């Protein structure tokens, strides 16, 4: 699908720049001479995270008015400035915020938001409000196809995410890297797949997929396992520990894609959301500490998004329904820590939903430029990079 740059998108991209950000060209020298390209960890909070109870406009009277049952009291939350506070479960994020490792981009979305999980996820993963068949990471891989290594991995036992769909680099999904080992007959299998790769049609496709698998598995075979000490229990925590092991093995990984589900809190939200955010915060605090121990903290950045936020007004089931804009988090040693962009207004809603203030593509563009060290123009055309580093 071709992307046409609409004037509206361009204007929104400009508007997305925080007041204190330096408007920079793609040619400027990037965050200090010591930092080469970083590995980017992309985390999808699947189901639609309730952004309003994550980064909370705690003193806005509209917040308590819209949420008689779900609003949190200021004394229970973790204040980050005079207006905004973090959910009490996010103690791990507060620690990262205080040590200068957490950037929070507020009110992130795109024009004409979609409220379907699938369509909205497709839009985020494609990096295009029209959706599409290639992923934003996939286009980055295509743009930099000369780079070598096992470049992008999804930790999943499902189909590869659309974000990684590329025309040059077959997707690699791994459930557990410690388990990603070659079978005993791998040598003979390789001979068969190499033969198949030399033939035509679908035989070549399956042959190449096999060879790709053997390459990936032999690279991962010297995985530098680490300790799980400090990681809390939970699925995201396990995936982040695996991510640190993969990145630490020095096999050329540039992107790791993770999904952390359960955020579709239509009913009885308070307890469930607290569990999810507690794991999110503590897992990332442990991950950053693990990276520091491995001497990798300056080489890795993480971006955390959800396909949409939830409606400001709570529903009658103690939960919230699908909404629009939400916060995006960027975690790195060396990030421009703090709040970026504007918190969306609770006073002027669009059909009951938040109006976005930062276009998600400006974050992608900033990450492609300053973290993955590539030209963002082919990856997210028309987007103005948000300076996060």
């Amino acid at each position: 699908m071709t992307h046409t740059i609409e004037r509206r998108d361009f204007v929104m991209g400009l508007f997305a720049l925080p007041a204190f950000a330096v408007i920079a060209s793609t040619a400027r020298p990037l965050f200090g001479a010591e930092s080469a390209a970083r590995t980017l960890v992309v985390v999808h909070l699947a189901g639609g995270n309730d952004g309003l109870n994550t980064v909370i406009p705690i003193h806005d009277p509209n917040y308590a008015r819209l949420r008689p049952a779900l609003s949190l009291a200021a004394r229970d939350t973790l204040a980050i400035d005079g207006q905004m506070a973090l959910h009490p479960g996010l103690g791990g994020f507060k620690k990262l915020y205080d040590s200068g490792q957490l950037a929070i981009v507020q009110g992130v979305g795109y024009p004409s938001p979609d409220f379907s999980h699938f369509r909205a996820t497709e839009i985020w993963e494609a990096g295009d409000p029209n959706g599409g068949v290639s992923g934003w990471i996939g286009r980055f891989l295509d743009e930099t196809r000369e780079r070598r290594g096992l470049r992008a991995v999804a930790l999943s036992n499902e189909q590869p995410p659309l974000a990684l769909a590329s025309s040059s680099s077959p997707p690699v999904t791994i459930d557990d890297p410690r388990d990603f080992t070659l079978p005993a007959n791998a040598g003979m299998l390789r001979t068969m797949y190499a033969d198949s790769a030399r033939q035509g049609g679908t035989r070549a496709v399956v042959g190449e997929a096999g060879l790709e698998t053997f390459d990936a598995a032999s690279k991962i075979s010297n995985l530098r396992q680490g300790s799980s000490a400090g990681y809390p229990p939970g699925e995201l925590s396990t995936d982040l520990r695996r991510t640190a092991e993969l990145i630490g093995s020095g096999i050329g990984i540039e992107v790791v894609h993770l999904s952390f589900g359960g955020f579709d809190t239509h009913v009885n939200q308070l307890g469930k959301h607290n569990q999810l955010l507690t794991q999110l915060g503590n897992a990332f605090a442990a991950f950053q500490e693990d990276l520091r121990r491995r001497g990798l903290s300056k080489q890795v950045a993480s971006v955390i998004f959800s396909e949409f936020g939830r409606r400001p007004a709570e529903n009658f089931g103690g939960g919230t329904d699908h909404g629009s804009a939400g916060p995006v988090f960027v975690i790195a040693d060396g990030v421009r820590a703090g709040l970026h962009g504007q918190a969306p207004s609770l006073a002027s809603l669009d059909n009951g939903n938040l109006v976005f203030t930062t276009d998600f593509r400006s974050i992608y563009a900033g990450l492609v430029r300053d973290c993955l060290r590539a030209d963002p123009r082919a990856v997210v055309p028309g987007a103005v990079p948000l300076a996060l580093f």
Partner: protein
Amino acid sequence: MGSHDVGHLLRRTGFGPSPHEFEAFASLGFERAVDRLVDGLSQPPAPDPAGFNPYLPGAITSGWMERMRSSETPLAEKLALFWHGHFATSLRKVDDPRLMWRQVATFRTLGGGRFSALVGAVSRDPAMIRWLDGNSNRKGAPNENFARELMELFTIGRGNYSERDVREAARAFTGWGAETTGFVLRAEYHDTGPKTVLGESGNFDGDDVVRIITGRPECARFISAKLIAWFSHPDPSESEIAAAASVFARSGGKIADVVRHILLAPAFRSAASYRSLVKSPVEYVVGAIKVAGLASVPAWTVEMPGKMGQTLFAPPTVKGWDGGRAWLAAGAMLERFRFAARIAPDARDAGGTIALGFDGVVPPGVAAVIDRVTGADRVALALSSPEFQLN
């Protein structure tokens, strides 16, 4: 017919040959064989086994895999799998395995009949109604989820309708809800006012919308192209689509007639079609169980398609599984090799399994390797080979 054609036909119309099926079909001519398979669609499906309980863990997955393995009418199961990927509904939201099982039973029973009747049944299907929010589609506050997917993914495809058509169609389905017991029409929520859908106007309800969209030429083309890519070969040509779509139109949308046409078209038996499709995980696992001559689906294999990226009853999105190259991600490939190594010792007869798996002729690139080993190791390599990943 030759063993090449027998294997090809049974892989495409089912889950590959068992030793017994291979013998039964080898004695038939190709057209007789196609007739037998397609005519099987009008037979009533076998009842569920006594004591079948969809609420037991894994029951619906193992129950369906066992049907795929043992069905006397494999084409009905293959079409049910096609429609499961087409009207892709997930247990993760429906949250009731009995409703998922019922939906697949509908695909099995109606999958070869008139497309309009199938879409009508899907519009009333409780799992679909939960999946695409039919219960919240009410007069004055229509939920467009079902109406949009109905046009975009289920019948005519993107580019053949407007946003207004979606909104108007959603109004026609207002009040079409579901309880755990079944479909309910909630008259107080139904919008009885006039609507205009794809240029036709009237006080439409959901059945009228189904009639209008399934009668469109775009629908005949959309469904025909997808059926050719499922049964015959990827990327069908314009003229192939037009020929199948005209069978669709002439027959009043009878899916069995379109399938028969696709199987009898010259392209189906061409070299370009043979082994041109990547087996989905469930086709791979059930196919291996069948060529190995096993008498039932082993319990440990039930979770294998999920590990390879295809959890039955839980497609990743309403678009279903992408299929093709997407089945061959690295982690999924390793799972295929592990499965092959584990099932190989259970094969009834190593030589017979290998002959059946390769339609009697082991490809040279495979033969050169498997001849270095013996017994179960040979079977493991054969089932892991690139050729065996293809349908």
